[in-house]
């Protein structure tokens, strides 16, 4: 193995997608990123069914009050090194739901967030670009080790 490749994040990124109350707009764009037109799976990324297999937590939607503890629990279940992406503006800041009585707050008040993908919903390629940014972070963490 060359020194160069040591710097790369060695695993394929596996992603756990969690919906905390979004309108489905972002969710279908995430699925669209997996399907032939954008095909994110060519980078070895895939959606997995449980957080314990995942490297990246992908969250969509504002966090509802009764999803608050579930998000925390899922975040703790993701093994280190991990990263969190928020897709869509309502997860980042509340967006159109900003004065709702059942929203617990933007995601970064609840768990640490690494990358924000603004858009309502973002195009699939914007999500791919967001994943690339997460890649940077994971590589950085790998480099420090």
């Amino acid at each position, binding site marked *: 193995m060359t020194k160069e490749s040591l710097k790369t994040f060695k695993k394929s990124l596996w992603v756990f997608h969690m919906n905390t109350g979004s309108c489905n707009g972002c969710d279908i764009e995430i699925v669209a990123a997996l399907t032939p037109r954008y095909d994110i799976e060519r980078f070895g990324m895939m959606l997995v069914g449980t957080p314990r297999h995942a490297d990246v937590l992908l969250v969509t939607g504002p966090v509802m009050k*009764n999803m608050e503890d579930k998000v925390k629990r899922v975040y703790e279940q993701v093994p280190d090194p991990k990263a969190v992406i928020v897709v869509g503006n309502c997860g980042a800041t509340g967006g159109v739901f900003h004065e709702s*009585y059942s929203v617990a707050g933007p995601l970064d008040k609840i768990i640490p967030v690494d990358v924000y993908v603004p858009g309502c919903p973002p195009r699939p390629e914007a999500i791919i670009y967001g994943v690339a940014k997460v890649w940077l972070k994971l590589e950085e963490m790998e480099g420090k080790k």
Partner: protein
Amino acid sequence: MKNLSSEEIVQYFNDKFKEKIKDARIEKRSAGSKKKEFFNIWFKIDKSIFKEAINHLCEIQFPHFAVISGNDIGENIELVYHFSVYYGVRLKEISINISVEVPKSNLKIESICDIIPGALISEREIQEMLGVTVEGIPDNRRIFLIGNIPEGVYPWRKDEKGPQKLVRDMYE
């Protein structure tokens, strides 16, 4: 029974319930370039004949029940039941909206689940959103608000029982 026009439906109700129908209004709208028309009927009825009126409506045709909406109008709470009849016939559908007022001192309304079982979710919703007690409801658990907001707060109310104090400012 043959298909009634919207005037005939209003007449049909007026004949049966007379002054218990407080108000009946036909809203006529049209759309498209051929200006085809459609009708919405709005009834305001007295609480005492509520169940009977629904039964009476079922005699025209088994209606499609849409939803119950609720208004908090000060002393009373107004519940609006949305139905439609004559669906399936090209451009003949008529929407019927029956509103009934319930005083806040005695927030009770009869359940219509025995006539239209599909009304269950909507009745559970008005129970928790407005604090109206639906008598004879087959299932009286909360539905949308479990875990989100405490009991005793009714989001559709405009008075002190509203959810205003639960709002968090997200933009600090």
